[in-house]
C-alpha cells in the first residue's frame, strides 16, 4: 500500500500550499527548453496548463479530439464558477468555500486538496478578468455574483449562461498566444489510445490521427491528462458526444489506480428524455434554481391528468402544488445540493406525482419570479437557456413551467492522484474532471470550472515542475524504442480485432444497451441485487460486443464508427468497475445512494466508521478482478457530520 502516498505536505492546512511552493524543486529557465511535456486535452485544465507550461518555457505538445482547442467540452458549462472573493460582503471566506465543498462532497474528499482549491479560487477570477473574460457586472462596474446549490453565500461568478464558454475561450486565447510563440505545438483531431511507459515512468502516448487513421507516437518527460469525465458510460448524459473516459481508462490498464469510479453526479435539472432515438440530454443550468421553484401536483389524480394531456400546469391551484424541496429542506429550499434535489425528484415521480407524458418530469416554475422581478430581469438572467429550452421542447417557459428531470452529468471519480495531481504512474499527471481529487461523493455547482482552472493555471505548473526538476538530464525521447513499438502494436491489435468481428449490431446499439444497464442499476438508486445483476449483464454484453459488433469502413482515413467502437469497448469495461465499486461501498454518500443505507426520512446514510476512505482500484489483468486499495481520509479541520440542509 506504499503506492498510495497522498503526499500531503505537513503543517496547518492554511499553510500547506505556501509551504509546498516554498520548498519545491524548480527548473531554471535555460533548462526548461530541454524538457518536453505532453498535455492531452484542451478543456479548462488542458488548455490552461498547456498555456501556463508554455509560458514558463517548457516544450509543450497539446492534443485534442475536436478540430479546435476551443471546442473542448468545458465550452458547454453554463452556470458559473465559484470563488471565495466575498465581494458581496455576505460572509464568505476561503475556509467557508473549503467547508462547503467538503460538506457538499459528503465528507469523501481529501481535505488538503480542497483547501488549496478554495485558496487559489480567487486568483482564477483575477486571471480571467485580466484575459478579457466578460463576466457579468453591476451598474457600478464591479463583478456580479449569484448563488448556487449547497451554499448560503453568493460566490458564483458568471458570464450569462455561457460561463464555461467564456472561461474556455480565455484559456484558448492564452493557448493561442503560446502556439504563436512556438512554445506549444497543437495537434487537433487526434485521439490518445494508450500511454507509453519506459522504466515504469510515463514517457509518451500513442495517438490516432482521426483524419488519416494513422497511429502516431509522441514522447515527453511527463504526460498530463486533462481528458474530462466518463459520464457517457450511461449513453445518455449531458456530456458532449465525444466525451469519453478512454485515455484515463488506458492509464488505469497501464497501472494508474482508478478512484471512486461509482461516484457519479446526476444533475436534477435536465430536459426529460423524449424518444428512443435520443442522442444526448440537455442541461438546464442550476442557476435557474435561484429563481425557479420546483413542484409537482399534490394530488395523484392531477398528475395523471397532466400526463394524459387533460390538464395544464397553469390550471393547478397554488394550494394543490407541492413545492417539495421547500417543504423538505426549508433552509436551502430549491438550492439544495444536486444529489439531494435529484433523489427528491425521483422520489416524487416514483410515488406517481411526476408530470409530462412519461410521468418522469417535475416542474421548474418561473411565474413568481417573473411577477416579482419582471420578465426583463428573468430574460437578462436566463434568456439563452429559455431559448434553448423552447427550441428543444417547443414550449415557452415564460408562459408555462419548464419540465425537468435528473440526468447523468459529471463524474467525481477518476484517476487517483496525490496532492501533486500525480497518478500512481510516475510522470503521469491528471487534472480536472479526469481525476478524483476535489469533490468527494458529490460536486457542488460551479466547482468543476473552479477545479479545472485551479489545476491548470495554478497547481500543475508548480507540481509538474517539481517532478521535472530531476529530468533535465534525460535527453529528448526518441519514439523508435521497443516500448513505443510494443505499445503501438497493442493499439493496432485492438483496432484489428474490432474490424475482424464483422458482426451485425451497431456500436450505438451496444452503447445504448450498456446505458440502460447502468441507468437502471448503477444510477440514482442502487442496491446489492441490482449491482450484482449489472456486473453480470455488463460482462455478457461485453462478450457479445466482441462477437457481434459491426465496424464498417477502412482502417485508414477517417472512420467515425471505429472511433466510437474504441470508446464503447472501454466503457464496457469501465461500467463493470463502477458497479463493483458501488457494490463494495456499503453506505450511501453523496451521489452514491444505496437503498439499503438510508435514514428514516430517506436521506443518504453514511458509514463513517468503515467508509471514510477513497477506494482506489488497481488493474490486475483482463481476467482478474481489480484490487481495492484504500486511502484513509482524515478530517482535522472539519467536523464530520450528517449533512443537513433542513436548517442553516
Amino acid at each position, binding site marked *: 500500500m506504499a503506492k498510495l502516498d497522498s503526499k500531503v505536505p505537513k503543517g496547518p492546512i492554511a499553510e500547506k500550499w505556501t509551504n509546498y511552493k516554498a520548498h519545491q524543486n524548480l527548473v531554471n529557465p535555460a533548462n526548461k527548453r530541454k524538457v518536453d511535456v505532453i498535455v492531452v486535452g484542451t478543456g479548462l485544465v488542458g488548455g*490552461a496548463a498547456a498555456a*501556463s507550461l508554455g509560458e514558463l518555457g517548457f516544450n509543450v505538445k497539446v492534443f485534442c479530439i*475536436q*478540430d*479546435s*482547442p*476551443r*471546442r473542448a*467540452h468545458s*465550452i*458547454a458549462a453554463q452556470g458559473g464558477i465559484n470563488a471565495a*472573493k466575498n465581494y458581496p460582503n455576505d460572509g464568505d471566506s476561503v475556509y467557508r468555500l473549503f467547508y462547503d465543498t467538503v460538506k457538499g462532497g459528503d465528507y469523501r474528499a481529501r481535505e488538503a486538496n480542497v483547501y488549496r482549491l478554495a485558496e487559489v479560487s480567487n486568483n482564477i*477570477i*483575477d*486571471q*480571467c*478578468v*485580466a*484575459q*478579457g473574460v*466578460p*463576466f*457579468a*457586472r453591476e451598474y457600478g*462596474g*464591479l463583478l456580479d455574483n449569484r448563488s448556487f446549490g449547497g451554499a448560503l453565500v453568493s460566490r458564483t461568478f458568471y*458570464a450569462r449562461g*455561457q460561463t*464555461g464558454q467564456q472561461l474556455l475561450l480565455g484559456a484558448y*486565447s*492564452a493557448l*493561442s*498566444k503560446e502556439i*504563436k510563440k512556438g512554445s506549444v505545438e497543437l495537434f487537433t483531431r487526434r485521439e490518445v489510445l494508450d500511454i507509453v511507459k519506459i522504466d515504469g515512468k510515463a514517457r509518451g502516448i500513442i495517438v490516432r490521427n482521426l*483524419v488519416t487513421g494513422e497511429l502516431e507516437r509522441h514522447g515527453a518527460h511527463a504526460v498530463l491528462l486533462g481528458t474530462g469525465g466518463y459520464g457517457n458510460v450511461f449513453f445518455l448524459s449531458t456530456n*458532449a*458526444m465525444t466525451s469519453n473516459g478512454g485515455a484515463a481508462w488506458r492509464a488505469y490498464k497501464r497501472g494508474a489506480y482508478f478512484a471512486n469510479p461509482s461516484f457519479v453526479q446526476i444533475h436534477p435539472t435536465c430536459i426529460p428524455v*423524449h*424518444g428512443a*432515438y*435520443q*442522442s*444526448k440530454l*440537455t*442541461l438546464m443550468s442550476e442557476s435557474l434554481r435561484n429563481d425557479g421553484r420546483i413542484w409537482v401536483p399534490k394530488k395523484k389524480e392531477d398528475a395523471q391528468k397532466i400526463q394524459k394531456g387533460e390538464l395544464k400546469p397553469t390550471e393547478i391551484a397554488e394550494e394543490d402544488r407541492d413545492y417539495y424541496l421547500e417543504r423538505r429542506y426549508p433552509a436551502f429550499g430549491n438550492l439544495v445540493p444536486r444529489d439531494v434535489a435529484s433523489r427528491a425528484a425521483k422520489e416524487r415521480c416514483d410515488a406517481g406525482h411526476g408530470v409530462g407524458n412519461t410521468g418522469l418530469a417535475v416542474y421548474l416554475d418561473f411565474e413568481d419570479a417573473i411577477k416579482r422581478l419582471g420578465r426583463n430581469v428573468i430574460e437578462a438572467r436566463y434568456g439563452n437557456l429559455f*431559448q*434553448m429550452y423552447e*427550441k*428543444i421542447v417547443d414550449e415557452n417557459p415564460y408562459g408555462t413551467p419548464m419540465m425537468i428531470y435528473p440526468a447523468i452529468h459529471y463524474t467525481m471519480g477518476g484517476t487517483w492522484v496525490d496532492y501533486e495531481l500525480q497518478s500512481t504512474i510516475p510522470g503521469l499527471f491528471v487534472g480536472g474532471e479526469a481525476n478524483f481529487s476535489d469533490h468527494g461523493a458529490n460536486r457542488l455547482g460551479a466547482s468543476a470550472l473552479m477545479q479545472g482552472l485551479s489545476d491548470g*493555471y*495554478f497547481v500543475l505548473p508548480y507540481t509538474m515542475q517539481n517532478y521535472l526538476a530531476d529530468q533535465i538530464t534525460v535527453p529528448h525521447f526518441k519514439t523508435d524504442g521497443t516500448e513505443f513499438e510494443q505499445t503501438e502494436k497493442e493499439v493496432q491489435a485492438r483496432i484489428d480485432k474490432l474490424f475482424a468481428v464483422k458482426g451485425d449490431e*451497431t*456500436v*450505438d446499439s451496444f452503447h445504448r444497451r450498456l446505458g440502460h444497464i447502468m441507468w437502471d442499476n448503477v444510477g440514482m438508486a442502487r442496491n446489492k441485487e441490482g449491482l450484482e445483476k449489472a456486473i453480470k449483464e455488463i460482462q455478457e454484453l461485453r462478450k457479445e460486443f466482441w462477437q457481434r459488433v*459491426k465496424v*464498417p*469502413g477502412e482502417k485508414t*482515413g*477517417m472512420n467515425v*464508427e471505429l472511433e466510437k467502437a474504441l470508446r464503447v469497448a472501454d466503457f464496457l469495461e469501465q461500467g463493470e468497475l463502477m458497479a463493483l465499486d458501488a457494490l463494495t461501498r456499503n453506505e450511501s454518500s453523496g451521489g452514491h445512494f444505496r437503498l439499503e443505507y438510508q435514514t428514516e426520512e430517506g436521506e443518504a446514510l453514511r458509514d463513517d466508521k468503515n467508509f471514510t476512505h477513497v477506494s482506489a482500484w488497481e488493474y490486475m489483468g483482463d481476467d482478474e478482478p481489480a484490487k481495492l486499495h484504500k486511502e484513509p481520509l482524515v478530517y482535522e479541520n472539519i467536523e464530520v457530520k450528517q449533512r443537513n440542509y433542513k436548517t442553516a
Partner: protein
Amino acid sequence: MDLKLKIWRQQGPGTKGKFVEYPVKNISADASFLEMMDILNEELVAKGEEPVAFDHDCREGICGMCSLYINGNPHGPDSAITTCQLHMRKFKDGETVVIEPWRAKPFPVIKDLMVDRSAFDDIIQAGGYVSINTGGVPDANDIPIKKENADLAMDAASCIGCGACVAACKNASAMLFVSAKVSQFALLPQGKIEAKRRVESMVAVMDDIGFGNCTNTYACEAVCPKEISVTNIARMNREFFVAKVS
C-alpha cells in the same frame, strides 16, 4: 414523417464529391436534425455501408462543431440556432432536404460534410488574446468596467466559431468572426493596450489565408446562430483605420 435526403458525399480532401439520395422514414417531429442523421447512419451501418461523416459534439449549440448547409442555409431554416439545435418539426412530411458542407475555399472538405476550419485558429493565434501570462495580475475588481461595455463585449464574445458567417457569404468573408473577437477586446480596458497590433495582425492573417472582402450584404448576421451583430464589423473597421493612422 418521411423525407428524401440529398447528401453531399466526398471521400477525402482531394477527391470529387457528389450528391447521393437517401430516403428516411418515420422520423419524429420532436427528433433533432442530427438525431435524424444518426438514424440514417445507423441504417447505413446496418446495411454495411459507410455512414455520412459530419462534425458535431456538444449538441446544444455552444461548441461550434456542427456545420451543415441545409436547403441552402447554414444551420438550416430556423433562426438563431445551430444545426444541432434544429428540430424536425421545421420540416414537412415528404420534403426533399439537401445537405451540404460549408463551401468556402479556406474551409476545405475533409470528408463528406466535414470541413477543416483551422484557418479560424490561425487568425486567433495572430492576436486574439491579451498578452499576459498566468499570475501577477491585478485584483479582478481593481478596474471597474461599465456594465454596458461589459454586456457588448459579452455579445461579441458569444461567437462560437462555427463558420456559418463564412459559409453564408458570397465572398467567403470572415469579417464577422474576426470583428467579434476584435470588438470584445476593443470594448474592455484589458484589451485596449494591444488594440492596434491586434487588429492589424488578425486582419493580415485573415487576408493571407484567402477569406474574401466584406461587401455589406449582411448575410453573415442573418445566419449567425448567436446573432452576432454587423456593428462589430463597423467597430473593427474603425479600429483598423485608427491603427493605420496612428
